[in-house]
């Protein structure tokens, strides 16, 4: 290699500095919020004068926060199921199908990834108002499923493309009907892709805020929407506590995912 790390000389320290700066930029806000959520100051003074669990106590005592968390979990779970099931069906069509316009269809499936999310949110809001889905759980699930679907399609088509169809054929010759062969052989073989699709789908719904703001009603809010709403009313450390919980749950999910992947890889 012409541009080798060892030959960079003094420039290496420059690279190190940039790397550290980027890491700090990514980590500091999160750490900052976490620290504030344990700070005793009502006015979010930093560094906190003393440490306390008080804001977490207030958070868990407030039914509005609990309802928001429950909504988030419910929407996330339903979105995960819908997006994986639809993604699986779409992937079979895209990978195995031999119809004209296959690539166009794939491009269409991926548009929610690149479409400006505000545009998408406004359009969906207008539509849902008309058909009475705005402010409903179903509306939430449909909206987030559309956002999560492209990621499910990508994960599952990748898995399906690397899966040799001859293995499914072998199962069929062994006496399994085409459906049974898919259920007993193909799905278990691509389970890592299905798992990634589920994880992505849940996380996308879990921390999505723009579309959720449009979908929400005063009685139906997800956690990010509730944080956003609370922020505009008053600045309290309870928000920091809620944000910290959001981050911690995400981290736990990622850790579990890493573990599952390690076990699968064996």
């Amino acid at each position, binding site marked *: 290699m012409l541009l080798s790390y060892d030959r960079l000389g003094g420039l290496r320290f420059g690279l190190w500095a940039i790397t550290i700066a980027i890491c700090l930029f990514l980590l500091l806000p999160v750490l900052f919020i976490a620290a504030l959520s344990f700070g005793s100051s009502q006015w979010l003074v930093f560094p906190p004068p003393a440490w306390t669990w008080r804001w977490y106590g207030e958070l868990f005592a407030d039914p509005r926060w609990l309802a928001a968390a429950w909504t988030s979990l419910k929407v996330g779970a339903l979105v995960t199921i819908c997006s994986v099931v639809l993604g699986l069906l779409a992937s079979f069509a895209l990978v195995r199908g031999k119809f004209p316009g296959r690539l166009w269809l794939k491009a269409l499936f991926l548009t929610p990834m690149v479409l400006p999310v505000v545009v998408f949110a406004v359009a969906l809001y207008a539509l849902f108002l008309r058909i009475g889905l705005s402010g409903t759980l179903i509306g939430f699930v449909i909206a987030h499923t559309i956002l999560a679907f492209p990621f499910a399609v990508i994960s599952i088509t990748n898995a399906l493309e690397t899966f040799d169809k*001859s293995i499914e*054929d*072998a199962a069929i010759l*062994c*006496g*399994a009907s085409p459906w049974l062969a898919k259920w007993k052989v193909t799905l278990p073989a691509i389970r890592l892709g299905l798992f990634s699709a589920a994880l992505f789908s849940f996380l996308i719904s879990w921390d999505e805020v723009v579309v959720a703001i449009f979908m929400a009603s005063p009685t139906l809010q997800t956690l990010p929407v509730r944080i956003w709403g609370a922020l505009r009313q008053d600045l309290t450390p309870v928000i920091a506590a809620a944000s910290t919980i959001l981050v911690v749950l995400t981290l736990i999910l990622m850790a579990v995912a890493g573990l599952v992947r390690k076990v699968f890889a064996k």
Partner: protein
Amino acid sequence: MTDSFLTISGFRKTFGSIVAVEDVSLNIPKGEFLTFLGPSGSGKSTTLYAVAGFDDPSAGDISIDGRSILATPPHKRNIGMVFQRYTLFPHLPVGENIAFPLRVRGHSAADIAKTVKAMLSLVRLEGFEDRLPAQLSGGQQQRVALARALAYDPPVLLMDEPLSALDKKLREEIQVEIRRIHQETGVTILYVTHDQEEALRLSDRIAVFNHGRIEQVGSGEDLYARPATRFVAGFIGDSNFLKVREVERRGSAASAILPDGTRIENIPAHAGNGHAATPELMVRPQSLKFVQGSGAGLAVKVKDVTFLGDTSSVLLETGWGQEIWLRGAGSAVKTNALSGPLHVEWNPADSHLFC
């Protein structure tokens, strides 16, 4: 043939405008080991897949025991198959892979355990039940695939180049195993390969495929000694194809005059010259002998000698400038005797005229 068990008649398969198989008919008696041999793209796999049921024929019929199987979907045909690629179910251990066809058929647990054991011992992999496919070598995976395909005692076993991904030594080892398993089980085997040595080693009969047709069906010896077409003569064993100036046919024999005027009588003559426009005389390098003394035979010059241990190969040039090979025992081809103009001859009955 009355004893045909698996019958393919007038099978034709097209993919759009591509003709994969022109016209294939075969009668395969029960228990036979028949190999499809031919170059890549000649329609071997397409024919095999039609028997398996993955592709419907464009024309023709396939029957087992006198009953057409075309209306039966592949999972109900009860046919075993080993594929070119590794097709063990990656998430199941070896034992469960072999048990899979039995579980699908609803066999009892005791029966499954017994059969899995018997199959593992048939392919000499006792004690491998709990390994995952990824922990096996390529050769072991194909042996498990063979065990899985035989577990439900199918009347017909299909094998599509199952050894092509393995190295030569391992390939020969497993060929011996396949031969033994065929003898022990008596299953009817259709085997696909493009490797003539493999075909000769394994098969009772070989069907030579070319451009979507069968050029000839016969035992290895038949194909080698009595090739029906120029393609078979060139595909099985080594061969020289001499140019011919004139042919006089008399029934199944003919006389040929070579470009330098040499006249050869009583050569078996065949019509199958494929695409070549001019007649050709085929003679194996082993059939050629140097003539002691002078006069008779075909005048040649020696261009090169290659020592090959047991034998030597000699590159010769004929009077009209064509290069041909002679192969003989090392002692019969003494290098010091190979100078100046020489003559070679052969038994005309061992050569073939394709016109």
